[in-house]
């Protein structure tokens, strides 16, 4: 029993130590981030080094983080919300947790289709969801567009990631915005019989399967392809920019907004502006091989080597508005 006593005492002491709330210092910005620690911490560290302003952040999943922000309301400690996918940003704006930001700097740095028409959020990096193919089995001339992947010539040769990933939901949402529901449903349906195997749970698995010869074409985010190429330059996979004669490649963003009840709104806006600047955009781009949202900034050399491409300039907020429709459509089409 003695050990039990001692254990209990120790645990209680420990408890009293860690229950003491931490005090918030001045000159800080507090960030809720659905973008992972390893992808944002380098940026914040650079910012602190440059300006002396501290950035406190907590990471989490988009959905629960948004619920938390909303439930905390005017008492929230968060000054800024960073998240991936336009759908999530649109949803945050819809729930009224973001503030309008009027900033010449941001308007100049971030193209109009990559930010909220209302100024509640701004894209900071561009994620191109594009086609990849096995160079041993496919010639680039065989490829045209996302829609064409439903062509019977791809029967048993296509790999797709799960429809549960928001990237695919956004892709389909943007198609709905362009073609309407019936035509989009027909396109999505036409992909299914072409699948070489069950849909994958992430882009990496898909690329690995393609490298191993399980399938010949697939749809992935370009930076996953970039990471693979960096590690294994010899992999027989190449990137193809589809829909160049039409609307362009589907792009999504990761982005940020200042919260409505920010305790340090000025400081948050400064950080946001800095994140759109050359220096930060370079860091953004290099850390993950995404494309900078600021068109004046060059992408990582490897990403640049994939060539210039035309990207879809419909405002990315459409992806948010139509996401629920897209999810239901994919369920109906039997896309798991």
């Amino acid at each position, binding site marked *: *029993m003695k050990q*039990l006593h001692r*254990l*209990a005492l120790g*645990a*209680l002491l*420990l*408890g009293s130590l*860690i*229950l003491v*709330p*931490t005090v918030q210092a001045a000159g800080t910005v507090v960030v809720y981030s659905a973008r*992972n*620690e*390893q*992808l944002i911490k380098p940026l914040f560290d650079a910012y602190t080094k440059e300006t002396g302003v501290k950035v*406190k*952040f*907590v990471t*989490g*999943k988009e*959905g*629960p*983080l948004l*619920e*938390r922000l909303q*439930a*905390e*309301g005017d*008492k*929230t*400690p968060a000054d800024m919300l960073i998240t991936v996918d336009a759908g999530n940003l649109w*949803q945050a704006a819809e729930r009224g947790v973001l503030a309008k930001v009027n900033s010449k700097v941001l308007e100049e740095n971030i193209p109009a289709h990559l930010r909220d028409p209302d100024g509640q959020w701004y894209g900071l990096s561009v994620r191109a969801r594009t086609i990849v193919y096995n160079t041993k089995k496919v010639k680039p001339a065989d490829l045209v567009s996302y829609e064409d992947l439903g062509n019977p010539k791809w029967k048993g040769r296509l790999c797709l990631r*799960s429809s*549960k990933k*928001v990237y695919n*939901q956004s892709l389909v949402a943007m198609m709905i915005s362009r073609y309407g529901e019936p035509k989009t449903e027909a396109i999505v349906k036409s992909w299914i019989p072409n699948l070489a*195997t*069950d*849909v994958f*749970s*992430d*882009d*990496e*698995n898909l690329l*690995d*399967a393609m*490298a*191993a*010869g*399980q399938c010949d074409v697939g749809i992935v985010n370009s930076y*996953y392809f970039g*990471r693979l190429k960096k590690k294994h330059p010899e992999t027989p996979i190449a990137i193809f920019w589809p829909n160049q004669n039409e609307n362009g490649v589907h792009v999504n963003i990761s982005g940020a907004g200042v919260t409505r009840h920010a305790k340090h709104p000025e400081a948050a806006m400064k950080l946001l502006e800095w994140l759109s600047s050359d220096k930060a955009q370079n860091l953004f781009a290099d850390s993950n091989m995404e494309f900078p949202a600021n068109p004046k900034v060059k992408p990582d050399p490897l990403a640049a080597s994939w060539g210039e491409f035309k990207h879809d300039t419909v405002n990315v907020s459409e992806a948010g508005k139509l*996401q*629920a429709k897209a*999810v*239901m459509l994919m*369920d*109906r089409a039997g896309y*798991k």
Partner: protein
Amino acid sequence: MFYPGSVDTQAVRPAWRVSDGGWWRVAALLIAVLVSMPVLMLLPAWLTPSSEVWRHLADTVLGELLRNTLVLLLGVGAGVLVLGVGLAWLTVMYEFPGRRVFEWALMLPLGIPAYVMAFVAVGLLDFSGPVQAALRAVFGQNGYWFPRIRSEGGVIAVMTLALYPYVYMLARSAFLSQGRTLMEAGRSLGLSPRAAFVRIALPMARPAIAAGVALALMETLADFGAVTIFNYDTFTTAIYKAWFGLFNLGAAAQLSTLLLLFVAVALYAERHWRGQSRYYAAGKPVQGHRHRLTGLRAAAACGFALSVLALAFIIPVGQLIFWLVSAGIEDLDAGYVEFVSHTVSLGLLAALFTVAAAVLLAYVRKQWPGRLMRAVTRLATLGYALPGAVLAVGIMLAFTRLDRQVDAFVQTVFGVSTGLLLSSSVAALLFAYLVRFLAVAHGPVESALERIKPSLQQAARSLGASHRELLWRVYLPILRPGLLSAALLVFVEVMKELPATLLLRPFDWDTLAIRIFELTSEGEWQRAALPALTLVLVGLLPVILLVRRKA
């Protein structure tokens, strides 16, 4: 002594005064109500209709989801029962080469989160994995057959391997503590060893085994990580789809309460089926000699234990080590000390609170077996079957609401704002663990308590012992193995826990599980090997400690 059937604690109740121990009941009731709060927070969701979501799900995927969930439950249930009980019986009753190592080593898979196990399995065995790559190198692209790993069988196998230790651990301590005398009595009355096992040992261990299987099944229902990696759609998938895909948290909450309803019915059915029979242990466990296996049978026993251990632990850990080596350990920095200390201190604190609450609940349930307490305890232990993120949001909502009321009160009385004190504090996090893992602690504690003879408490009470004395001086010492099992389980669970930690942790309170999540959600599996291995290592210590104390 061994009482099959008839004795009911209720029969001896009139010997005590009714008002006796009122505070105990109040305290237990209070805990139970508090713990059921987050679950109850989900109920108001039914007030807002989300018929569109429902119609959509019913029209398209719901049928398949229900079927999948059922098949998964049946498969995992059968799997953990066979592996858990079989291995426990083998290591308790027989002597074979390696038995001493297997005894504790078979618990090790507890330290590996199911989603890590799932990823390793897919990584190794899928088309692009090293196994099939080797086969292709020998037989050519299409010259061989290999089972699809991302399939129903695959997900059942992985979940079984990840979850069987619950049953193993609880069945083992039940077999150990029931002692050998009963078995020997049975044998002397002419039962064969198998008959003695089936007719004496199994029924006596049934509460413990049932508790273990229930834990494994509740975990299966709540799982999101492993099924996602296999892209196997279950009821939980529908909950997340409604929430993240269709932006409808209300519908997600409705689906969650339905899920709980199923669990409640299942648990009730099990209790009912168990009926009124009660089994009590015959005092001190007797460490008799083990039956020694020789020749082929010894080899078979050793081979069986070894292959389970290999599949559930050695191979996954080996793969993690391989990734660690190939990715390099550049990530290992001062931050890791912090991750480990956060992880361990949260685990210890949560284990302490949760086991204490479980003891209180189980004790009061035993002393005053009323309908109310029974219902409330059931409700309080349901949290485990809820998908973690849903439960976490329920807790977060409850705490922010409380915080805002405190703030408003202080504002009107003292004119200052307190801000949010509790939500996203360590206290909220510990409460979340209590809600989520009370079932984990409650199972072992209750099943241990159930095997204590009522004559013991009657004797103590007749000698004038108060409830405090009875609990502290009689029950706790007897219960200690059960309590340690419970504490260990909670500790390991808390270390692996993700959704609640992710949502409720204070700033700068990252744990190893968080680190794994951050890396894996961007597909950085090789870099995630370091925190995953650290997690396994930290989880090993209490397992070894526990086993050594028992030996």
